[in-house]
């Protein structure tokens, strides 16, 4: 397999991989193309002219829904979830480096958070808030519901990062007289920064797209995925695709920006 000549196996698997990528991106591109449907066009091909009519429609009419508000809420919620996920996962990752009573239980609690069906969390938090007499809202109940999905990912990633992290660097720093805070700030943090940014990306995108956990916990105001889900049942114009295109492009921009940041950090570290 590491030979110089590519075997038949390589070409067969390469074709398989290409088909898989086409399978992943093909339908998305159909939506992208159809969102430029002409004003009289429908939900399917062929294109009935090319226009940005549906994008304009998206920003004009407020009759179908409040996209602007939903987008702002989703964005803010995503950022809140991102910050808390990064900080809490980092702390938990540091905690798991030492043995403490309950570490195994806490680890499996995080795993449980990953496997408990999302709709059960949605129902549970919804009923809990109702019984305590709290009004569910996107920044309280939905915020907590999203954290049960993003935190386990963050914790598992940090766990994996610290599994591979050699304590030699910290020992060297300590031998040179650094305090534990200095060691953390100037030695550990720069080394794990790319992973932390990755955790942040997960936290933001998982929250920004989360839907099942928001269902019972969002309260009066919808987040963007809830708005889109509502549209799938009652909107029959390409405005649905226009919204899909806009949110997908936004996701792509976020991902690209984050990856750019990680590459930049790695380059800078290599140079120094």
């Amino acid at each position, binding site marked *: 397999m590491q030979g110089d000549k590519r075997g038949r196996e390589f070409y067969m698997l*390469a074709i398989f*991989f290409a088909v898989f990528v086409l399978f992943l991106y093909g339908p998305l591109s159909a939506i992208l193309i159809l969102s430029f449907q002409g004003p009289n066009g429908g939900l399917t091909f062929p294109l009935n002219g090319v226009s940005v009519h549906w994008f304009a429609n998206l920003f004009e009419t407020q009759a179908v829904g409040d996209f602007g508000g939903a987008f702002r809420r989703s964005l803010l919620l995503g950022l809140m979830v991102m910050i808390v996920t990064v900080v*809490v996962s980092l702390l938990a990752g540091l905690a798991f480096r030492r043995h403490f009573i309950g570490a195994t239980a806490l680890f499996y609690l995080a795993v449980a958070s990953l496997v408990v069906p999302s709709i059960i969390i949605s129902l549970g938090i919804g009923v809990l808030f109702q019984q305590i007499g709290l009004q569910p809202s996107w920044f309280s109940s939905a915020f907590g519901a999203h954290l049960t999905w993003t935190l386990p990912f963050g914790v598992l990633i940090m766990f994996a990062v610290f599994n591979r992290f050699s304590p030699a660097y910290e020992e060297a720093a300590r031998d040179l007289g650094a305090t534990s805070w200095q060691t953390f700030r100037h030695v550990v943090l720069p080394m794990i920064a790319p992973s932390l940014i990755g955790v942040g990306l997960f936290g933001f995108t998982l929250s920004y*797209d989360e839907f099942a956990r928001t269902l019972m916990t969002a309260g009066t105001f919808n987040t963007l995925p809830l708005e889109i889900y509502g549209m799938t049942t009652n909107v029959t114009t390409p405005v649905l695709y226009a919204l899909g295109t806009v949110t997908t492009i936004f996701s792509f921009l976020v991902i690209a920006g984050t990856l750019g940041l990680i590459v930049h950090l790695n380059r800078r570290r290599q140079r120094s």
Partner: protein
Amino acid sequence: MATMTSSETEQIEPRRAKSFRLSPTAISYLQATPLTLILGAFLLLPILMIAVVSFWDYDFAQMYPDFVTFNYAETLGSWVTWKTYLNTLKFALFVWAITLFIGFWVAYFLAFHIRTTAMQMVLFLVCTVPFLTSNIIRMISWIPVLGRNGLVNSTLLNAGIVPEPIEWLLYSDFAVVLAMVHLYTLFMVTPIFNTLMRIDKSLVEAARDAGASGWQILTNVILPLAKPGMAIGTIFVVTLVMADFSTVQVMSGGQSASVALMMKNQMSLLQYPAAAANAVVLLVFVLLMVAAILRIVDIRKEL
């Protein structure tokens, strides 16, 4: 927001730890506290609440604290429940088998056939990016492809392969499984890729030096070593399918059912205790399944 500020103050804990001389174990506890509090408040407490509510009485508008077991009797005694579980398990089985097949070969290709690490990462990211975009958008993106006048049907019609549009492409069990595979395959690719990347390449060399054919290397060396990754991928895919209601609802056009969809319908009728009993049954079912898989694989070793 309260959780945020409390965790931020703990982040500067190491500095304070110095002046107060906290023991390392105490620091560990402090560092683990935010995670424990959040999961306690938003995971354990809600599940406990569901367990309690599942024994309550209810009418069309309200729930009444009580201890009745008819929510369970109705759930477990109904033929519809069993049929729905069977249907959900059918989806899980199909999606699991297909994602395992695709996941293994994609991961194998990336780990053993791509020679540079940079290229490996680029191709892996190509697979990952769609996963970071909206599930609902990815779901509805199949509609113009599979619909009655969709891409597939019009292509087949124009080529003269079929005389009239195929009806079962969209709003069918086929569409549900296809969309789930589309949504969840990455959860299989990632853990298997992770496991395959950790296989020492000299093992493969040794097997080849000992005269093993490519097929023998695959079945006797790589496949056994890939099993932990497959087990973790299985946990992800099976629990995601068991919890799914939106894909089933949208892609089957309301013609198929799943356990979570049944729960969601009860919730929209405000039958929370009934939904709670259903939730407890589903939760026990899923946790037993995961526990069985965890007996085979130690997640902590695989990370």
